[in-house]
Each structure stands twice: as C-alpha cells, then as structure tokens.
C-alpha cells in the first residue's frame, strides 16, 4: 500500500514538475532533486533558495526545473533518471540518501553532469559538494557553554550517520573549549522531518534537565518548544528566527547559491570538471545567522571564533582529543584528514550517549 502511495506521489510530482518547462529549447536545463518540500523551513528550503539565486543570476541562459519530496531509495533512481531523460544538462541531487541512485543514473547518462550533495562517491560526470557544517556547530558549542547555567545541552539528532556524529562531536568540542566539564545529552528522533516527534524529543530533553537545545533535524518545532519553555536554542539549515525571536542564539544557514552559480557557469563555458568540494565558512557556502539573544561578550567570542575558522587559524578538530572511552585519538596539535571526518563513527570525550551502531 505504502509502495503504491510513493509511486503515485512520485509520478504526480514528476508530471507537476515538468508541466511548465516544456518550451524554450535553447535554454540549458539545470535540474534539482529535493528530498523534502521546498518550503520545509530547513534543509530543502535552503537548496531552493540557492536554486532561485542561480535562476536569477543566469536568468536567460538556463531554466531550473525541480522535483520535490522525492523519497530516498529506489524511487529516487527513477526520479533522477526521469530528469536525465527530459534533457537536463546538469542535475543536482540534494540529499545524502540519493548517493547510490545518482551514481547509477550518472553511469547511464555520461553526457549529463551530476552534482551530489554531501556524498562521497564520484565519477567522471559526477561531482560531490558538501559544507563544513561542523565549523558552525563548534561555534554553537562555545556559545552553549557560555549560556548554559547547568552545563548540559540537549541535541536532537536524526540518524547515526557520520555527518550527524561529526556535528555532535564538533558541538561538544566547542563547548569543552569553554567549559571542560560540559556535557551533551543526545536524543535520536530517527527521522529528518516530523514536527511532532521533534517537539517530543525537545520536551523530553528539557524535562530531563537540559537548559539549551540544538537540533540536527529539519523543522522549526524544537525551536518553538524551546521558546515556550523559555530556554535558548540554535537553528538548523535555515535561519529559524521567526519561530523563536527571543530564543534563537544563532543558526547554521546553508547558502548554496554561490556554489550553484559557480558550477553552472563552469558547465556553460565548458570548464566543468568532476571535483569533490568540501567548502566551509570562508567560502560562503555556510553562514552563521546573526548572533542574537546573548550578552555582548559571548557575541564577541563567537565572532572571534568565526573569524579564526575563516582565516584557517582554528580547526575545530585539533588535538589533543580523546575518544569517548578516554583513549587517545589526536595528539596535541594534530588535525584529522577530511576522509576521517567524513567517516566518523565514534564520539569524543564528554558526549553523554552511546552511539547507536
């Protein structure tokens, strides 16, 4: 029953997505596949804002059809292939879970360029791009340690994949750089998108005694709960200040637009090559929402850390760092390879959780 539903939804979405874009053959089609709805207030919305900036910048040369709410899994492959057949010159697949589907379709369509967000598999015509979200989470951790009276923050996590684990670790490291005793409680919601469940997780954390919240899920529900309970919180993927004008301290804001424009221009002038891009704060692919609802000294600290990360003076993962069980991971001054970070499957010391395997 569910399969049928997904298939029907996907078909409806495909038909809808192409309805308005059949004409204007000379324009290049730059296509996007979204995992959520373009108005989710978080992850997908950030990608869609990037798409709109791209459309605006290269207006008369391209058109940018997109498919929303494409479920990860076998249906993603059909959706991407459908896009490729419809004459897209380039396809951005914007969720980690589209990785294998993108690899398969890319192999079938060597003339189409593919760009997959946050993955680690590439090919001749398949590039990957990612953002160093952990840089922002390190800053959040520092702010949390300054703002929390109890020294315990709550973290609403989605799934135990390296990206999420890396974020948890960066947050804890940032917090410990300010308060070495700082603890982090983690709740796994096992979903990216379910306002109710995310709110429940937020309430559970607050009821268990945390006095600051951060999230790695997509909706503003946790921010809203934090606002009701009167504790500060951090936004995720998009600026969530509207959901908590007196609650949001800052947010990691994904700003994909500049990257989309750069890569699409490269396609148009023929210089596009398959690359594995992992940009951060300094490249503008990631920005911090204004530092609000905090004292000036905390704000100054956050701004200083941000500047140091941008200049390369500070790498959030700099030794000495111990693993959760106390065994040594990085020696003093040592920094990990990108590959190690991208495959991270262990916690650093101070995280009050056992990593689900």
């Amino acid at each position: 029953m569910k399969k049928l539903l997904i298939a029907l939804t996907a078909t409806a979405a495909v038909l809808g997505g192409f309805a308005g874009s059949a004409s204007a053959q000379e324009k290049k089609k730059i296509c996007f596949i979204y995992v959520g709805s373009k108005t989710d207030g978080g992850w997908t919305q950030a990608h869609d804002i990037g798409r709109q900036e791209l459309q605006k910048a290269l207006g008369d040369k391209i058109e940018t059809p997109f498919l929303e709410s494409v479920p990860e899994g076998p249906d993603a492959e059909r959706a991407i292939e459908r896009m490729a057949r419809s004459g897209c010159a380039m396809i951005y697949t914007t969720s980690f879970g589209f990785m294998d589907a993108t690899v398969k379709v890319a192999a079938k369509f060597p003339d189409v360029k593919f760009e997959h967000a946050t993955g680690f598999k590439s090919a001749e015509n398949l590039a990957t791009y990612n953002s160093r979200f952990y840089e922002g989470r390190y800053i959040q951790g520092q702010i949390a340690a300054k703002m929390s009276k109890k020294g315990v923050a709550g973290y609403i996590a989605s799934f135990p994949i390296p990206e999420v684990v890396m974020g948890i670790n960066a947050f804890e490291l940032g917090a410990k750089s300010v308060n070495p005793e700082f603890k982090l409680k983690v709740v796994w919601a096992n979903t990216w998108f379910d306002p109710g469940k995310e709110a429940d997780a937020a309430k559970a954390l607050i009821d268990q005694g945390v006095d600051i919240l951060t999230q790695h899920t997509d909706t503003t529900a946790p921010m809203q709960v934090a606002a009701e309970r009167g504790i500060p919180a951090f936004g995720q993927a998009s600026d969530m200040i509207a959901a908590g004008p007196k609650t949001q301290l800052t947010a990691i804001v994904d700003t994909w637009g500049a990257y989309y424009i750069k890569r699409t221009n490269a396609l148009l002038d023929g210089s596009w090559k398959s690359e594995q891009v992992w940009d951060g704060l300094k490249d503008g692919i990631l920005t911090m929402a204004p530092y609000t609802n905090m004292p000036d000294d905390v704000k100054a600290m956050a701004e200083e850390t941000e500047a140091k990360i941008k200049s390369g003076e500070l790498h959030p993962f700099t030794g000495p760092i111990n693993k959760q069980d106390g065994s040594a991971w990085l020696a003093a001054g040592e920094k990990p390879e990108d590959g190690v970070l991208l495959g991270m499957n262990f916690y650093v010391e101070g995280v009050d959780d056992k990593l689900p395997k």
Partner: protein
Amino acid sequence: MFEAILLTVITASTPLVVAALGELVSQRSGVLNLGVEGMMIMGAVAAFATAQLTGSPYLGILGGIIGGGLFSLLFGFLTLTLVANQVATGLALTILGLGLSGQIGEAFVGMPGVRLQPLVIPVLSDIPFFGRVLFSQDLIFYMSVALVFGISWFLFKSRTGLKMRAIGDNHGSAHALGINVVRTRYLAVLFGGACAGLAGAQLSLVYTPQWVENMTAGRGWIALALVVFASWRPLRVLAGGYLFGAVGIGQLHAQLLAQSGGIAIPSQLLSALPYAATIVVLIIISHNRRTTLINTPASLGKPFVPDR
C-alpha cells in the same frame, strides 16, 4: 518529571485518539476510509489558516472540523453515490489531501502559529496532580474524552447507533428493513472527516503550532491501525491511543535514562517500540476469535447499491 512526561503523552496521544474515533464510526457503518491522513492534513491546514486569518484558535478548531468534513464528503460522493472502490478512493484522498494542503498552506509557511491556550477548569484543577494533568488542558483534549464516551453511548445505547451498526454488519438486511443505508453512511463518513479534521487542528494549533507540509507525518495511518487494534470499541481506542503515545514518548526518555546509566540500547530499537507494542497487544486481543468476529463490521468496505 512524571507529570511533565504525562502532559507530553497527552499531547501526543490526543490527535491519534480523535482521528481513530472518527474512523471507528465510519467503519462501524461499513465504510472503510483510508483517507484519514489526507483528511487530517486538510484539517491541519484549514485550522491553521483560519486561526491565522481571524486570530482566534477557536475559529481555527471550527475551520479544521469543516475542512476535514468537507474533504470527506468528496470521498462520500465517490464511494457512496458513485460506488467507487473504497480502498482506492481512500488512498487517492490521502494523496490529494497531502498535495492540496501543501498548495493551500504555501502562504502560511514559516508564520508563527496561534496557540490554543489551555482552559483551566476552576475547582477541579486544584486537585493535586490530577487537576493539573487532566483539568488544565486545551479544549480539544476535553472534546476527545467527550467523544470517547459520547460515541460509546451512541453506538451501544442509542437506537440510531444500533441501526448504524446493523448497516455495518449487513447493509442488505438493513436496507430491507427500511433503513436508509446511503444517508446514514454519508453522515458517518462526514463525522469521520470532521474528527480527522479536529485531529489535524490539534496538530497545527496545540502539538506544534505551525504549518509545515506533510506535518501529519503518518499519524493518520496510525489512527487507522488503532481502529483495528481496538477491535472497533471506543474505549479501547482511548487505551490504545494512549499506549501508543506513551511508548513513543517513553522511548525518548528511555534513551536519555539509558545514557546517564551508561547502558547501550540501540535507539532504532527503542523507536520501533510503539509498533512492537501494537503487535503484541493485537496478538493478545485477537486471541479470542469470537469477540473479534462479533466486533468486526461484516460489510466493511463492501460496495452497496440500493436496488440490488
């Protein structure tokens, strides 16, 4: 802390109970409406939009009820008047509802919602513990409790309820006795839609006062399962809804408690607990085949054409 957890459980369980009660009435009349998810999300968007435009969460509730109810009439027209297949129509209703609500709601995305405030009942709310948990709730919670007992009375104590169950068990015989099958079913479907709409209103006005596409996130399907789980008995819907809500919230706390105790329990396992609990209870309930058979509406999902 126990009190705080209980309050969270009530918020999480209420929409499940309300939507399941509506579907129970519809199914007791013999109509299987798989469109609960769609009607619920239509209720959620209608409630949010109405509350947003009028500034009143109470008009929002009304908007949710009307939104869900009107949407269910579409199902009624297709399956009762045109005698279309109920399973297929219900699925279509869900898909249509998810899409349509996204379209209607686009203007309301990101807006801070209007929260339905609790109605504190004087005197009763002064009772220690229970007063704060049971009598300082919002209107939709009180409605959910009233619905449980109201529907119980209606189905098993009133004449109209008896007629409706007769239709659900054998629409041919009921028709021969002169009961208006189609009209009764229309009303039952409408009631089911209104309840689903009310459940949706709870989501967008109480649970998470905001509008996001797909915000029901599968709760309509859980409500549908609850009806079977409760073997079509309203009180069991209440118990089942709260069991499901409690296990769902409990697993989040269990994660945290396990963490501070240093015990490693996979969170995926804990997330699956509500569903595992459902299966266990289902096995226990269906242990006695006779009672299950007595409660199952025999004409459920079967098309009815008056002149046959």
